[in-house]
């Protein structure tokens, strides 16, 4: 019992070793009683309290998954030519990368397949994938982002069997995952994870200006921002620079939740010149007036650094700010006192606009290139990785930086948003998320506009006073006409 407690504690702290992982996989995969005992171990911890209702769902689902695993392992011995090679995206939580490697190498050993796992930054992946697609040589599996499956469609192996199988066993895929990977009715990439976003904020500062509960609309967020600025406290700050993840996430979400979009539902008509867009731009002008001006230069790391330094009180991000503050024991000075930053940090879901809550999906999928000589082995690995037994030990130590793309696992007891109340706002992230190209299904063109930063730059140019609202819309419209032609 003590050992399991210890295991769970390490899991939560992200200090899971290879041995721990195997134990955990056994506990979650081997039997429902195994899970039950781990849960029993965690019950005395206050963090576990909110998860209790999910018990039955999880324990029921487990045996089904294990059965499939068992039959698959016996059914056909896999073989590869050379090694099974893959390039995967590095998570911001180093322990998440370690666990992933262990899981894959473990699979390689069990199936007697040599594997080569390279974990690289997201920005490098796109170049690797483009080169692989164009030259017809490279790794067997490459993790690609957003709607890249549309860019490389012709060169990707059909993975419909994998996706249909997983989808049927885990309550289906999230809409955004399907939008990104199902090209003309065929699955061309296996959804892997969302990097879920919420607003990280300083509870103490929000409370200081009377915001005892988090804002629910963008307008309320502005009010809090204004109050913070008037009080001379650390301001709210959202990225308006070329920040691949955070910048797109924030700006697309504002645009869509104001009911505006870059394209109409037909996927051809540029729809940016609308009253809704104007309302969103006017809002951004106001919001920028209560933000620090350097948000125009924010990259994906700037808002993390500023928050960790106590210089800002809210920003949009994955859970990595809170996670880093906790891992590193970051302190912040309140008057004469030093306090743990992570204790003063919490999250709230993206606010709603006039059109409700519509958010941008920061998304990764695993593509198998059709030149690969190891397609069967690659498919087997991708199936294996997305099974509950492997998802849990990988998702948990990532502390909310990764969110599974299969609907059926989000209620699992060991998913971080179920074990850690501060991560609860990430739980419903994928329900409202979409890809550039939304509300149409022309994600290929949407990805083109996204690559050109059309939406981010439109907001940034208005916020920064580099263009009037009309000018910014006209510039965006011209660029979008080219993307969606």
């Amino acid at each position, binding site marked *: 019992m003590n050992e399991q407690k210890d295991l769970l504690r390490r899991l939560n702290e992200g200090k899971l070793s290879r041995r721990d992982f195997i134990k955990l996989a056994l506990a979650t995969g081997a039997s429902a009683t195994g899970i039950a005992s781990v849960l029993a171990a965690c019950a005395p911890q206050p963090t576990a309290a909110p998860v209790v209702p999910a018990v039955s769902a999880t324990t029921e689902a487990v045996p089904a998954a294990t059965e499939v695993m068992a039959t698959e392992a016996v059914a056909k011995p896999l073989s590869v030519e050379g090694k099974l090679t893959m390039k995967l995206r590095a998570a911001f939580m180093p322990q998440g990368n370690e666990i992933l490697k262990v899981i894959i190498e473990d699979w390689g050993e069990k199936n007697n397949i040599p594997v080569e796992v390279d974990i690289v930054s997201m920005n490098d992946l796109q170049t690797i994938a*483009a080169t692989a697609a164009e030259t017809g040589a490279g790794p067997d599996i490459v993790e690609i982002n957003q709607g890249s499956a549309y860019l490389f*469609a012709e060169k990707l192996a059909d993975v419909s069997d994998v996706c249909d199988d997983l989808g049927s066993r885990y309550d289906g895929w999230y809409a955004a995952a399907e939008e990104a990977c199902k090209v003309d009715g065929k699955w061309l990439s296996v959804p892997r994870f969302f990097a879920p976003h919420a607003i990280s904020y300083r509870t103490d500062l929000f409370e200081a200006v009377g915001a005892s509960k988090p804002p629910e609309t963008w307008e309320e967020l502005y009010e809090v921002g204004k109050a913070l600025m008037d009080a001379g406290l650390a301001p709210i700050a959202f990225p308006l*620079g070329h920040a691949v993840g955070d910048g797109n996430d924030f700006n697309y979400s504002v645009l869509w939740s104001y009911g505006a979009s870059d394209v109409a539902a037909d996927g051809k008509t540029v729809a940016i010149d609308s009253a809704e867009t104007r309302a969103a731009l006017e809002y951004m002008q106001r919001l920028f007036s209560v933000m620090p001006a*350097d*948000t125009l230069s924010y990259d994906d790391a700037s808002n993390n*650094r500023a928050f960790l330094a106590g210089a800002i009180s809210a920003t949009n991000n994955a859970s990595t700010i809170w996670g880093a503050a906790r891992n590193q024991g970051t302190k912040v000075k309140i008057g004469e006192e030093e306090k743990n930053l992570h204790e003063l940090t919490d999250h709230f879901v993206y606010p709603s606009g006039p059109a409700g809550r519509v958010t941008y999906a920061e998304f990764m999928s695993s593509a198998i290139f059709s030149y690969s000589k190891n397609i069967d082995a690659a498919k087997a690995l991708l199936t294996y990785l997305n099974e509950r037994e492997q998802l849990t030990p990988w998702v948990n130590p990532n502390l909310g930086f990764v969110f599974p793309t299969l609907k059926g696992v989000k209620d699992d007891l060991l998913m971080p948003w179920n074990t850690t109340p501060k991560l609860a706002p990430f739980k419903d992230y994928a329900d409202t998320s979409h890809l550039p190209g939304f509300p149409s299904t022309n994600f290929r063109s949407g990805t*083109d506009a996204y690559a050109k930063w059309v939406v981010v730059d439109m907001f940034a140019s208005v916020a920064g006073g580099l263009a009037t609202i009309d000018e910014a819309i006209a510039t965006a419209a011209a660029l979008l006409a*080219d993307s969606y032609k």
Partner: protein
Amino acid sequence: MQATTAQERPSPTSQTFMQRLSAWFNQERILGPALVAPAVLILLVLIAYPFCIAIWLSMTDKVIARSDTGNFIWFANFTKLFKDSIFQRTTMNTFNYALVSVFFKLVLGLVMALVLDEVRFFKNFFRGILLLPWIVPTSLSALGWLWMFDSQFSVLNRLLLDWGLISEKIIWLGTPATAMFSVQLVNIWRGIPFFGISLLAGLQAIPQELYEAADIDGARAWSKFWNVTFPLLMPVTAVVTLFSIVQTFADFQIVYVLTRGGPVNSTHLFATLTHQTAILAGRLGEGAAVSIFMFPVLVIAVVLQLRYLQKDN
């Protein structure tokens, strides 16, 4: 040397294969081309071939991983680019970036060369240390600069504030003007040593007698610089400037690391826009057209410089 001895040996009957081979190689019409061949081969494979492919691509509608593209469309990519607002901005940026940077690199490099020429103690130490910016990999030093320009932790802002030169923080990478200034600053910082060391070599090749003669004529320092140093340094300067213009026009790493072309495309250069268009958006043909765009400019620069050098000879 070995080859020569082999040839001189007067025993043709006992010549081994190796000896005959080396004798054959020793003929000038064989040896010359043979020595040049590896360089030519490398140029053909690594420069000429990709270059021709790029020109071809720039006149097609090639999109990555799509077999229905790659049709020859003459200059459609170029005419389209002329109307593209990001490209117009990028063109202005690139000229601004390259011309301003090269000018300051030249002036400051010349100053560095003149100063280094006067240094009498620890000569090699100073030369070594001043070369550092040029030796450190650019992406690495650019990351260092990224920290120095960071809006929160900028050491530059801290210094300027402490010295009372500014009253509030400068947002280095957040406005078009300061962002362009910042990337230029890094380029200049990185490029000065190349100018400095090359010009220093040029300076030291100027015969001392000329200065002595000037001294006898009663010339002052300025007049010596203007009438002796400057004209004799001109050939080296021309070559170095040409090199630098070509390199600065094609610069990628500094902007990619510092701004990714932002804010609002105000620091995009041809090379970063090429990457964005060809790799991120997958439009290979259009991306190639962006990168080829600077070709005429560079050709003009090369022709002018070569003409100048030939006239000089």
